């Protein structure tokens, strides 16, 4: 059993609460940095994909998981970032300023959608964002100078500090670095007034407002931040796929992202990563599964979306905190061993008359 004694406020302010966390995250960092020496390029490519998905998940996590605003239009923000970055790269802009520009244009799109959306919640917001993404998809088809229309457009290799970055290894490190920087930025916001204001809005708008949180302002900020991150993810995705066509950025992508954050666990950064791992692994698992299932089921073309849907329903029913919630329980079990109580995570009733602990 492990006790953590807190002796200084900085322990709650710091990113890592105790030495144990520093140790495990350092180990993870070393593993991530060393991976290219052990893995063959195919798996490295899959990891890059994982990082891009994680970044996109992080983006939706800010909006849906932390601010409580749903979006089924995130494919549009990813698309805006991807096209702007591809366009600037083709015109010779180096990687760093170009991807930041992609993020900023996407953030502007986020602000534009926020203006009508901040008055909505739930289903209405879902439909409004879906409509926005339909408009954006139309724009991707029509605005040929920027996007190449439905023929699409090729994306050149990223140029970093004057060198062209080709090959899986370089791109792997690029994605890793961008992801880590973005996660740190979001974590910093979450331990500051802005992040707390988002969480407050998620849980009670009326109380947030009476604490001085300007609802419209912070919701717009959440949209802008989320869209910025989605735009950056789009920029990376552009390089990864190498050739952009509008049918990459359909509502299916948005729904997959929503599923990512729900399966991963709303309201946690780790959840975004877990969700991304799930989303990258699942198609592979399904492919393997097909061989073992009877032909009548195994060869159904709808098997994949069917299983996606099934998993989502199971998560909502059995583990609303998602994979992150399951992870926390396992971790808690080991930290409390051998004193773990079965009922620790049973949902408590709200008592009208309370029995205070002694």
């Amino acid at each position, binding site marked *: 059993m492990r006790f953590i004694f807190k002796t200084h*406020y*900085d322990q*709650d*302010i710091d990113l890592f609460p105790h030495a144990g966390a520093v140790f495990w995250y350092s180990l993870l960092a070393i593993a991530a940095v060393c991976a290219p020496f052990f893995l063959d390029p195919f798996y490295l490519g899959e990891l890059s994909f994982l990082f891009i998905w994680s970044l996109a998940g992080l983006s939706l996590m800010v909006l849906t998981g932390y601010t409580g605003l749903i979006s089924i239009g995130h494919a549009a923000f990813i698309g805006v970032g991807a096209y702007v970055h591809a366009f600037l790269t083709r015109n010779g802009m180096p990687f760093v300023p170009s991807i930041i520009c992609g993020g900023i244009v996407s953030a502007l799109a986020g602000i534009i959608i926020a203006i009508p959306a901040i008055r909505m919640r739930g289903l209405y917001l879902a439909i409004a964002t879906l409509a926005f993404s339909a408009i954006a998809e139309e724009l991707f088809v029509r605005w040929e100078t920027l996007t190449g229309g439905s023929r699409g457009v090729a994306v050149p290799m990223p140029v970093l500090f004057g060198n062209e970055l080709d090959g899986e290894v370089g791109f792997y490190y690029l994605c890793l670095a961008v992801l880590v920087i973005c996660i740190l*930025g979001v974590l*910093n*916001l979450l*331990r*500051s*007034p*802005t*992040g*707390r*204001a988002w*969480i*407050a809005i*998620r*849980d*009670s708008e*009326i*109380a*947030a*407002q*009476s*604490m*001085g*949180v*300007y*609802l419209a302002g912070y919701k717009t*900020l959440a949209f802008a931040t989320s869209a910025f991150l989605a735009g950056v993810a789009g920029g990376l995705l552009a390089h990864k796929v190498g050739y952009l066509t509008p049918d990459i950025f359909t509502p299916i992508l948005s729904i997959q992202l929503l599923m990512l954050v729900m399966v991963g666990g709303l*309201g946690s950064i780790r959840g975004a990563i877990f969700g991304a791992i799930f989303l990258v692994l699942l198609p592979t698992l399904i492919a393997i599964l097909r061989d073992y299932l009877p032909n009548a089921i195994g060869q159904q073309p709808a098997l994949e979306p069917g299983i996606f849907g099934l998993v989502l329903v199971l998560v909502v029913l059995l583990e609303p905190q998602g994979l992150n919630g399951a992870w926390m329980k396992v971790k808690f079990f080991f930290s409390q061993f051998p004193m773990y109580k079965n009922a620790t995570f049973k949902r*408590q009733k*709200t*008592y*009208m*008359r*309370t*029995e*205070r*602990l002694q």
Partner: protein
Amino acid sequence: MNMLQANELSINFGGIKAVDGITFDINKGEIFTIIGPNGAGKTTIFNLISRIYDSSGGNLVFNGVDITRFAPHKIAGLGIARTFQNVELFEHATLLQNLLVAQHAHHTTRMWEEVLFLPRVRESEREIRRNVEEIIDILDLQRYRDSIVHNLPYGVRKNIELARALCSKPKLILLDEPSSGLNVEETEDLSFWIRDIRDDLGVTVIIIEHDLSLVNDVSDRVMAVNYGRLLALGSPEQVQNHPDVIKAYLGG
């Protein structure tokens, strides 16, 4: 000295005059109680003061500032904090996060500084935390610091809401039925805390309350309302013995 003045305050919902031309003054440093039967318009008066609703008539002046048309999120910065009849906590956040949010009106850090978590941000976070810890000590909430609010018993949650209101460094605090759902012992603690809030922290208090023994215990003045109208205003005894008040409670 008057801290808050309400003049002919009114609001209609469709045909219902929920608050109908109420005039009262709150003195600095007093504990002022609003009583009245269910649906009398008590909570609506709070919602008008915290600017959740726009009044349809009359005006409100707080410390010399006309707040009748103030933006609702700026009310906290002026020094008015409140609790809600149906506890409105940030349920999926920890107690600490709940209380830290309450300092929002006073934060000075900018978003870009927060993204980089500059030393200035850390310094300001420490300062915010120190303020919050003072309130945690006063209300005995130490052991719940890292608990998710959602999982805590009702009495503690009511307490946290009071703590959160105090963390915004208010000059005036509005408590909507603070004792409802509490047991006898908790209600006794509450009456001590309410007096401490006024005496030690120098905060003026307006309470909506049904528990008459608590009302008599803490109030300097009491206002009784019914059907959105003022019935009586004065000392606790005066108001409780007022014939209109007795009639209202007997359902006349």
